[in-house]
């Protein structure tokens, strides 16, 4: 019996004759049964119902989701087990790699046409590699950097053919554990051996992590110049340039990337964001149009690109444009419609959409619509439960002010300032919108207290830290960062002395107050980790 006989296999291929041919090949190499679906959507559904060991997916799946999008969604939504081997079938491997988002790579590629032998070989190799490297990846996923590092050395010793993969993982482990000097030493040593795209990527990332942004920029420039078709280089470069406050350069960089690879949603959205900052509304419109278009089949599409596209159309209509105004207005209106339909379950998206709609109606001097959406905006704001993001708050407040809803604008800004006072770029913009000078002054005060407390925390003086966190939280009781810091300090103090369980009850109360943090917020994982630790310690006490 073949070692594959009991494997569960899924074939994703829109061309049914070819799918049948693959099924026959699988039988020939000892896999008697396999499931076949003909679209990406059906593949996602199939993976919800059954846990597959092997997925063979064509990259090109017709008009809807492509193979790369299928892979991204399966990983993000946890629909495949970590040991599942995903093989991408392509007409051209290189083209598929250029078009895809870099974070999600299949385990192997198979180029058409292929025969039984090649299929079997690819499967054998991909499965063996996965089995060998999976223990390291599991350690990395758990942030066990030391153990991952040690495992890398062991695997290099026992399976030298995975040396370069292990070295990559080793660098991930060093960077994760913030051993940047050691990582830098290793990467320069490797770069001397050979400069490859991933070496440059890694070197640039280490510079970035060390805060040496200029050096990071130069490294990524070198990467894009030497390997102009490795698109990830442009994304990395644009990020650094954005951080260096060179939005014009960053925009140019991303324009080169989307020329070569327009599909990734994140890239188009970043480009749109930069173009907005640069007041380049043609580019902004184009980027968000693409984002809406490519997002159509994606599970990652959000209200953001719809609102932004409508906003940039508004900007164009404000100026003297040669474009067909009627057509643009119709496009924007259809976007507002889509927000209403597609994101029904998301109160924040609804609020944002209606505010943008009112603002847009004012731009095109449609008084009736402006009044209509102005009237419903406040009640929609009441329904928003989660914290609205920093940038979104600025956008919404600005639009509210444009249509004369100043009071509501102040409410939105007030909440946001309390939440994001530690983001200087945000505070700068917020202070332009609010007329409440007291608000900004308080935010700065809370920020100072929080920073001071963090210093005490880092030096191990949890008592002083906690005192200051209490003071800061009085100024900004809803601020998630302060709450998390405060809770963490309480847990630490308890861990150190093991005597006052009151610390645990207090931190439990603080964490329980955090009810409006969206799952998508970057702080969410820290929040749930603290919650878990807190529960664990409480169990021991009780």
């Amino acid at each position, binding site marked *: 019996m073949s070692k594959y006989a009991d494997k569960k296999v899924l074939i994703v291929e829109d061309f049914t004759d070819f799918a049948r041919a693959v099924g026959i090949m699988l039988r020939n190499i000892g896999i008697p049964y396999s499931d076949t679906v003909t679209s990406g959507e059906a593949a996602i559904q199939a993976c919800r119902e059954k846990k597959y060991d092997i997925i063979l997916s064509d990259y090109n799946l017709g008009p809807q989701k492509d193979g790369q999008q299928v892979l991204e969604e399966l990983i993000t939504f946890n629909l495949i087990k970590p040991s599942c081997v995903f093989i991408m079938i392509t007409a*051209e491997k290189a083209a598929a790699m250029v078009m895809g988002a870099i974070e999600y790579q299949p385990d192997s590629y198979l180029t*058409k046409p292929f025969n039984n032998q090649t299929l079997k070989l690819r499967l054998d190799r991909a499965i063996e590699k996965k089995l060998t490297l999976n223990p390291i990846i599991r350690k990395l996923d758990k942030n066990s950097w030391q153990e991952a590092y040690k495992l890398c050395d062991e695997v290099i010793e026992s399976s030298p053919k995975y040396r*370069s993969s292990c070295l990559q993982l080793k660098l991930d482990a060093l960077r994760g554990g913030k051993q940047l000097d050691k990582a830098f030493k290793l990467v320069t040593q490797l770069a001397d051996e050979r400069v490859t795209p991933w070496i440059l990527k890694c070197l640039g990332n280490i510079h970035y992590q060390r805060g040496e942004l200029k050096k990071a920029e130069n490294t990524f420039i070198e990467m894009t110049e030497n390997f102009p078709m490795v698109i990830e280089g442009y994304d990395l470069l644009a990020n650094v340039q954005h951080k260096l406050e060179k939005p014009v350069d960053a925009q140019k960089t991303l324009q080169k990337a989307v020329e070569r690879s327009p599909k990734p949603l994140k890239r188009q959205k970043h480009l749109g964001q930069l173009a907005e900052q640069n007041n380049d509304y043609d580019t902004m419109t184009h980027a968000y149009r693409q984002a809406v278009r490519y997002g159509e089949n994606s599970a990652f599409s959000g209200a953001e690109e719809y609102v932004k596209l409508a906003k940039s159309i508004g900007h164009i209509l404000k100026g003297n444009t040669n474009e067909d105004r009627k057509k643009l207005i119709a496009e924007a209106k259809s976007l507002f419609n889509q927000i209403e339909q597609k994101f029904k379950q998301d109160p924040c998206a609804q609020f944002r959409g209606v505010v943008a709609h009112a603002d847009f109606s004012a731009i095109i001097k449609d008084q009736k619509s402006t009044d209509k959406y102005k009237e419903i905006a406040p009640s929609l704001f009441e329904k928003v439960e989660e914290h609205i993001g920093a940038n979104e708050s600025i956008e919404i407040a600005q639009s509210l002010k444009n249509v004369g809803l100043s009071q509501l604008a102040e409410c939105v800004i007030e909440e946001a300032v309390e939440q994001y006072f530690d983001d200087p770029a945000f505070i700068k913009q917020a202070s332009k919108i609010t007329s409440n000078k007291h608000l900004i002054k308080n935010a700065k005060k809370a920020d100072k207290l929080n920073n001071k407390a963090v210093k005490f925390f880092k030096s191990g003086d949890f008592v002083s830290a906690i005192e200051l966190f209490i003071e800061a939280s009085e100024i900004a009781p809803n601020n998630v960062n302060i709450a998390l810091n405060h809770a963490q300090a309480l847990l630490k103090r308890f861990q150190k002395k093991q005597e006052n369980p009151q610390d645990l009850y207090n931190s439990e109360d603080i964490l329980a107050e955090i009810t409006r943090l969206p799952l998508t917020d970057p702080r969410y994982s820290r929040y749930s980790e603290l919650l878990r630790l807190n529960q664990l310690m409480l169990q021991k006490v009780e």
Partner: protein
Amino acid sequence: MQKNNDDIFNLILASTVHDMKNSLGMLGQSLKSIFEHIDPAAIDTKANNLCGIVQYETSRVNNSLMQLLAIYKLENEQLPFNPSYYNLYDFLDEQRLLHLPLLEAKNIDCEIDCDEDIEGVFDESLLGTVLENIIGNAIRYTKNKIAIRCNQNDMLEIEIADDGSGYPEQMIKLEGNYIHGINQSSGSTGLGLFFAQKIAEMHKHKDQNGSIELANGGALNGGRFIIKLP
């Protein structure tokens, strides 16, 4: 507008290639199925040889298609070049397996002489296309043996040797000007060599460049193709 036309052309090119490759895949698979439906006793050497020819010509069309596409992209600065570390034995073994049905049909012995732990730095899909073509040609011109050998000293060196009658003298003399070897009347393999040279040259390290070399003789006393990568 020019830019737009390029985009449309690229799109047409990509979808046509995808289509053609599906067809080539179906061709191979259908041939296999035909054979499965025939009484095995009825399959004689001649049928096997004919099957081998269809397989060979299929992979030749596929390979030419890939080379053509790559050269088009190279001219337009769109050819992805993404070198990385690969295990050399695995890579060469896979190249051999691609041709296995034909090697078996023609009863050609193809051996690989390569240390199993060597890692090389190269662009896998581009070098794969190069070697697929060279091995395909070796199968065409050899008598009964092909040897794939590789070693790594200063440069990574891969040699594909056969025991056929060797490369024509005028081809060896081209030494790097393989574009002149493309000759319609002789149906020469110039495209393959031209492509191989281009791809070799893309591989750079410090001040070294890759190159290719043709020779006759060696242990098998036939044609020898050597590609050196820094």
